[in-house]
């Protein structure tokens, strides 16, 4: 499938943008984990490996025409749904959550690929079910079920962050396709009792605490509100130019929680200040706008929706993570794409990027 014409169309700009974010992330992880006493490979080096593996994956994905995905999308979806059910039945439990499935040779976390697969499934659905105007009730009940099954299963693990992410991505694709006002209105109306039910029957105690703490962090400054307060202090104390690499007191003295993963950005903001924050924010904005640009210049509906979905996934990760770190959102465990430490997150984000590049380089293929 791959030929020289495709290679010349390879979107180096996006690829280099992503590598730049990953490189800054690795330096930051080095600083964030400096106070850790761990044996074996340091986190920064491990992250470097993951970035390399991810880059390889991008190349691999680019070599396969994304149109194939349209045909296998429901198969992927079905298999992952079964995996999610299996997680609930026989999954590995650690730290109060059941997220991993042991497949003998290795373990997988099926909720993570579901972020990508839901994009593919939704793109497929809206491609094969086209209508002239915006989507009415008859058009959305099926995608709603398509979303509800995995979302509820993931929520049940519990993994609020991923569940929210899957919903946001699916919603963004649906909005891009277009919703009728009646659907939007009735969604808003039903969301009120839905929130009530979720609060009383679905959310766990610690999840509720996080949300309550978000609204009032002083509620419990030493326990669950602690993360939020310490993160805000870290970010703010960075000031205009930051305390300097390896000199963030909040990070180096371990006042931050999860500081190499979910709260990696607080470390960065503390050590590099507003100048550094602005730099990262601009890189991400460029990435998001470029992703939407790829979507808008794609000539087929499936590719466009796929690009929108992947961009949405990256976008919402950025917004939810940064929003959490700077106290705009409650604490939900969502990593910052390409930046936070973690193989799973890096691979998922790189697969997403691979799809974007794939769509971008095949835009002239008709």
């Amino acid at each position: 499938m791959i030929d020289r014409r495709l290679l010349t169309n390879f979107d180096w700009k996006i690829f280099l943008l992503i590598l730049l974010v990953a490189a800054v992330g690795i330096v930051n992880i080095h600083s964030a984990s400096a106070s850790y006493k761990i044996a074996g490979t340091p986190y920064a080096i491990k992250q470097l490996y993951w970035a390399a593996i991810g880059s390889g994956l991008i190349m691999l994905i680019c070599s396969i025409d994304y149109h194939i995905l349209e045909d296998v999308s429901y198969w992927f979806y079905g298999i992952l749904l079964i995996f999610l059910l299996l997680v609930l039945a026989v999954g590995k439990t650690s730290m109060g959550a059941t997220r991993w499935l042991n497949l003998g040779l290795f373990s997988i976390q099926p909720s993570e690929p579901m972020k990508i697969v839901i994009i593919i499934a939704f793109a497929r659905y809206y491609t094969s079910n086209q209508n002239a105007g915006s989507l009415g009730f008859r058009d959305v009940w099926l995608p709603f079920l398509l979303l509800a099954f995995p979302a509820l299963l993931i929520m049940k693990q519990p993994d609020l962050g991923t569940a929210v992410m899957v919903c946001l991505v699916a919603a963004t694709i649906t909005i891009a396709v277009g919703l009728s006002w009646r659907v939007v209105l009735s969604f808003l109306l039903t969301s009120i009792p839905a929130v009530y039910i979720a609060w009383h029957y679905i959310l766990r105690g610690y999840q509720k605490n996080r949300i309550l703490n978000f609204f009032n962090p002083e509620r419990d400054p030493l326990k669950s509100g602690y993360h939020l307060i310490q993160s805000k202090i870290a970010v703010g104390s960075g000031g205009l130019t930051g305390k300097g690499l390896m000199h963030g007191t909040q990070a180096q003295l371990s006042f931050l929680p999860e500081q190499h993963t979910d709260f990696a950005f607080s470390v960065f903001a503390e050590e590099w200040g507003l100048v550094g924050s602005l730099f990262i924010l601009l890189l991400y904005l460029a990435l998001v706008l470029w992703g939407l640009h790829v979507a808008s210049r794609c000539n087929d509906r499936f590719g466009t929706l796929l690009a929108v979905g992947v961009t949405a996934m990256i976008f919402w990760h950025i917004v939810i993570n940064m929003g959490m770190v700077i106290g705009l959102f409650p604490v939900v465990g969502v990593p910052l794409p390409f930046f936070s430490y973690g193989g799973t997150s890096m691979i998922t984000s790189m697969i997403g990027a691979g799809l974007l590049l794939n769509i971008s380089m095949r835009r002239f293929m008709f």
Partner: protein
Amino acid sequence: MKGNRYIRGVQGLHRKIYLLSVAATVIFLILLSRLWFLQFIEGDKLREMSENNRLRFIPVAASRGALLDRNGKVLVNNTPSFSLAVIPNEVKDKEYLLDNLAQVLSIDRNELLSRWEKGKGRAKYFPLVLASGLTRDQVEFFEENSLRLPGLEIEVKPVREYPQGTLAAHMLGYIAEISEKEMATTDFADYNPGDYIGKNGIERSFEKYLHGDDGGRQIEVDARGRLLRTLSETFPVPGQSLQLTVDLELQKAAEKALGDSAASVVVLDVNSGEILAMASSSQFDPALFTSRMPPEQWQAYLDDKRRPLENKALKGQYPPGSTFKIITALAGLNEGLIDENTTVNCSGEYAVGNGKFHCWNRKGHGKVNLRSALRESCDVYFYMLGEKLGVDRIADYARRFGLGQPLGIGIEGEKSGFVPTAAWKEKKTGSRWYLGETLSVAIGQGYLLTTPVQLAAMTSGLATGSIYRPHLVKKILDRDGKTTKEFQPEVLKRIELKPEHLRLVREGLLAVVNDPGGTGASARLYEVKVAGKTGTSQVVKLQESKRAVAYQYRDHALFIAFAPYDKPEIAVAVVVEHGQHGGGAAAPVAGQVLRKYFELKGVVRKPGAALEAGDEETKEDGDKE
């Protein structure tokens, strides 16, 4: 290729994607504005909070200055005390640790646990004191086993040591942990919670010299409170020591003489105002305030009728009784109303208007002059004189001798006593001053109030013609023993009276102690001429039967004295609460103190034989009807 199918329906999508780009940009701007708010607007505040997170100040208490007697003997000092603290978040096995502690400290395991639980609300890295006053062996044990029992810390703190026990406790005062109320005052702005401060007496009044400057260490800690490094350190500057005017031996003798009755004695150097001894009984133990005061003990102090916590020498106010006749006599002489030859015929009573005022001796003293009136403490003589003087003139002379005002001896809580005037009474009660009240004042009763230290100062004024300000501190010494401040004698009052008049009254006082028929014979010394005056102050008026009066209604016994008569050196004032008779209860105390003073000087060589009691009248003073 299925091109057509793809191209259809893409146009509408692309328009919406443009809107999505705008939305994404707006949301990023919101993120940016929040970052700008936190890092730019709130930046300084949050940076301070991050500093507070990592910086801790650990105060190191300065060792308190010592208190020495006039010859440099130690009255109060410091001794290192070891206490055991636990740092909860460094403890590996709480149960195991508690078992070990209970065994080594021989403290009940549950008691240890409850002390531990008390610190629950505090940060887990904060050392929590579990036991104080560890023995050397215990300290050694914990140091040797620090690896096996992690999370323990030995704290060394200087604590007050009282080598003389309860001696002079009232004058010296005690120290205890600073209260929240004290923390709030400007005097203690530099203090930290948990600091020990002087609560009263010299410890309180000289706090700023004694306390020293606390040092401390600025340390950096991580989120778990572990010490990472010391950023800066200031060493404590020990407090300054005080060399007092008190003589340890004389103080001991004074306290021994008082016994455990509710009483006080003040011994003054008449030529400098130095207080050589100041005792108040009954006693309390100052060491109990430094460590844990048992609640029963505290309640016992509060319930004791003898008020062991009060320094009666400074804070006890009593009508001076017949000791005040000195003032009435000097006023009469100076105003020309009497001279040494003026005589009065005492029939045992004195008529005033429709009523009668009795002499303490109902049978009457017969014909008395100034000398015999003082010697036998004849009330009628002074009723006559008081009537001629009027209360305001008496008050004027009382003030010249330092009564009715605090003397400013430099110790907190000194009382002023009270000298009444006609104007005062009219203002206070609206009714005029009655003659009968003047007669009461003339013999030292009625509204008059004096403190023992004022009586001693008054006596020194009579003895030398001037009153030096009584004081307790001679010198302030730095840690090397070098004098940094010396308190010089300061004349408080010059007694502007004719030396002749002073001599006449002194002669009367000499007779009180030394003549047959004098009321103060128990203060007599054979080697030294002592002059004195007894006094009895009424607690309640009109006691028909003096035999069976409940303790709290019995009269106070007073005695003042100075010696040697020809070249006065010291003045003594004694008040024995509810002691009934100045001659019987108070004069012997003065006698013992005077004997000790002259023994220490080498003037009196051997302890005196038992006092020959009973050869003189000891009963005196009168009531009014």
